[in-house]
């Protein structure tokens, strides 16, 4: 076994050990070590990757006649390192929140699955690990909620079949499953044109379905809110932070493997590659729809679940823009989304651990009780809302530049709307959970335990570091392309017609804060007053009254959107499922009516048909 294999299977093995031992204390240590091994190895490979460039390291193993190819190049290293970063944070989080070894096993199994998906160099490994990942995450959901897990299962199966058929088609056309070979074959085919336009569109559609399910793109997102909220929240860190990125990676794979062929087959529309344009619009719609839904949620987990869907929409949007700048923006957003959303989920995990509540109406005034968690939440909020200088802003800025440069104004408009929505829902989270009046049953809440705080710190630091020095990421990502797309130094991003100097923004912000701080310090000393001593139109109040708007915070928005909210994808699917069930029922009742005579007739008819067809 070599290092790549160690890296790949370390989490899985650690998971098995943790599961088998099932001793409190040891299983946590084993799990954290298992999660940290891949990160360590990946960091060790960093110099090799940067020097070797896109070629990377390729390793092959033989499993039952199949050659599984694993490659570690600029792109896969990037994805893998994000996954392992989130994985480490998850492991720390689970050390605090997880109560049994079952979760350790499947969480670490899905970790391996995700790494495998990113590192696979052919479709056999890709599909295999894809299914490991799906299975493990499904098992995680199943433990908490059967209904949601079923939803996730059905959609995943649809995705998996779509992918299997698409791979089959590709294999039929090209005769190979290796990524490099497929890529060359399709590249050649773009000139020859032996694969017809229809077939290509079919393959594209199937892949979009498969990856769209995993990424949670509208209208295939319906599993995400339920599944994200119905697992251990520390695991959701990984689920939303890394697992959904597999979908994004899949979309990127489409570009790499069949981009040229797709362009030649599907053509261009108003100077946009049609297939990319479709992805961009899927992304844009996901951003807006999921954003609106996130704003209107009343459950802390549902809010972030929809928010995750919305943020993955940004990634698809960036990929859909199709220019190198767009892809860099999307990849940057993969990183920043992983770190800020992972952080959010850890915060949520800590909150649920300490309070046992999930509805906004049960929270309030926790900032004083959990100050460290609160400051972590604040970092995540600033990053998600896209406040410069945070990682979330740098990636969003790249996406704006890309969309507008690529002349996709309406798509860029969706980013604007989406970021406004993001602003709205994170502030709602801040208000309902951390500020306002504290319910009396939260009086004895304690600060989150140390492991989960370490996990938060692991994710919070990149938020700030990559925010102030976004050049670290873009410089690395430039390596994907033949010539640098985003120039500038570590702190300054320069595109063809825009600039963003994160360090300067930081310095000026600090300067502004200093000026404001001087004025503040000169003023009178402050006296702290309780919430009952505030403006209540002059009326005396006591803590018996509820003074915080906890439920229906954004009810006016719901009223303004009344017309649109009548339609729901979730209900649509449920109705569809209901219809299918009814249809099957009628079929069953009509055909399997228990009458032996009619069964004989069926047999006769079938035989007749077969005879006519010429089989018999």
């Amino acid at each position: 076994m070599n290092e790549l294999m160690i890296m790949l299977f370390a989490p899985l093995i650690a998971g098995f050990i943790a599961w088998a031992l099932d001793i409190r204390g040891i299983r946590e240590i084993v799990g954290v070590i298992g999660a940290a091994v891949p990160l360590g190895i990946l960091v060790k490979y960093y110099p090799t990757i940067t020097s070797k460039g896109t070629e990377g390291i390729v390793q092959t193993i033989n499993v039952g006649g199949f050659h599984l190819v694993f490659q570690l190049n600029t792109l896969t290293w990037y994805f893998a390192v994000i996954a392992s970063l989130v994985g480490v944070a998850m492991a720390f989080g689970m050390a605090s929140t997880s109560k049994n070894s079952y979760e350790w096993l499947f969480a670490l199994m899905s970790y391996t699955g995700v790494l495998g998906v990113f590192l696979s160099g052919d479709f056999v490994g890709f599909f295999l690990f894809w299914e490991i990942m799906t299975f493990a995450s499904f098992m995680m959901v199943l433990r908490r909620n059967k209904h949601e897990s079923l939803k996730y299962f059905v959609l995943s199966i649809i995705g998996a079949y779509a992918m299997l058929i698409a791979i089959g088609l590709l294999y039929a056309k090209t005769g190979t499953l290796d990524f490099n070979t497929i890529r060359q074959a399709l590249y050649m085919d773009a000139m020859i044109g032996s694969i017809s336009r229809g077939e290509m569109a079919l393959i594209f559609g199937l892949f979009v379905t498969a990856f769209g399910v995993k990424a949670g793109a509208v209208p295939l997102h319906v599993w995400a809110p339920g599944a994200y909220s119905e697992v251990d929240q520390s695991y959701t860190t990984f689920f939303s932070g890394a697992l959904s990125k597999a979908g994004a990676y899949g979309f990127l794979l489409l570009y790499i493997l069949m981009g040229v062929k797709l362009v030649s087959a599907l053509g261009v529309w108003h100077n946009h590659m049609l297939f990319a344009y479709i992805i961009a619009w899927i992304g844009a719609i996901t951003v807006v729809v999921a954003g609106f839904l996130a704003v209107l949620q009343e459950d802390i987990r549902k809010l972030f679940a929809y928010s995750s869907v919305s943020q993955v929409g940004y990634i698809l949007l960036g990929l859909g823009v199709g220019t190198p700048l767009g892809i860099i923006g999307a990849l940057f957003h993969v990183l920043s989304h992983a770190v800020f959303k992972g952080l959010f989920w850890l915060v949520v995990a800590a909150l649920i651990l300490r309070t046992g509540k999930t509805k906004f109406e049960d929270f309030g005034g926790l900032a004083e009780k959990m100050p460290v968690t609160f400051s972590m939440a604040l970092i995540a909020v600033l990053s998600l809302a896209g406040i410069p200088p945070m990682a979330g802003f740098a990636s969003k800025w790249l996406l704006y530049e890309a969309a507008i440069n690529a002349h996709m104004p309406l798509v860029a408009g969706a980013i604007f709307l989406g970021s406004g929505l993001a602003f709205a829902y994170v502030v709602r989270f801040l208000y309902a959970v951390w500020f306002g009046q504290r319910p009396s049953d939260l009086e004895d809440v304690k600060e989150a335990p140390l492991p989960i705080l370490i996990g938060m710190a692991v994710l919070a630091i990149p938020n700030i570091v990559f925010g102030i020095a976004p050049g670290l990421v873009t410089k690395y990502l430039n390596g994907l392309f033949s010539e640098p797309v985003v120039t500038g130094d570590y702190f300054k991003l320069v595109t063809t017609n825009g600039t963003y100097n994160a360090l300067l923004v930081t310095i000026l912000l600090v300067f502004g804060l200093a000026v404001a701080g001087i004025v503040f310090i000169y003023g009178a000393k402050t006296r702290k007053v309780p919430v009952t001593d505030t403006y209540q139109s002059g009326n005396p109040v006591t803590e018996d009254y509820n003074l915080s708007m906890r439920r229906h915070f954004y009810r006016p928005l719901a009223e303004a959107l009344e017309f649109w909210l009548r339609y729901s994808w979730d209900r649509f699917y449920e109705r569809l499922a209901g219809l299918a069930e009814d249809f099957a029922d009628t079929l069953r009742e009509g055909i399997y009516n228990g009458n032996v005579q009619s069964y004989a007739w069926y047999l006769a008819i079938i035989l007749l048909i077969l005879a006519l067809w010429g089989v018999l």
Partner: protein
Amino acid sequence: MGGDFISYELKEFKLFEPLFRWARKKSIWLVAFCTGCGGIEMPPLVTARYDIERFGMMPNPAPRMADLFLITGYVTPKTLKRIIITYELMPDPKYILAHGSCPINGGVYWDSYNVVKQLDKYIPIDVAIAGCMPRPEAVMDGIREIMRKIENGEADGWRRYRENYEWYRKNQDELFGEGWRERDAKRWLAWL
């Protein structure tokens, strides 16, 4: 309120105090609270004919930003509770301008069972204007008086309130009964 309020140390501005005094005089914000019938003369005061915004005065709905509390007319105990609460919300330095005869000695309501006769016992008044109801000119005269007092540092009702807080508190409690804030607040719990 209470001990915390009295023991709290006020900031003394050494260097810029004259500047701040001038600013306090030139920018007096009113609490938007019409406690009595004199409230009807507030709109003329802020509109075209009298326009006190010339002197930098304007009504402000938030008591935290306000400087001047205009007691516009008679005060019933029920209103006085709200006046006290609002007054205590205002940051120091703050001033009270009593408007009309009623806050001084009850005015026409001298024998009414529901009008406070001597407001000065419950909150400190800086300037009182006589008349029922005082014409806007009289109010403006009162305002000029309070401006003069502010500039000279004589408008020290807020300081008196702080120093004699026990006394004021005692009078208030005598009128309303001990623990009136809680009692009053809890009244609505049963209905909601």
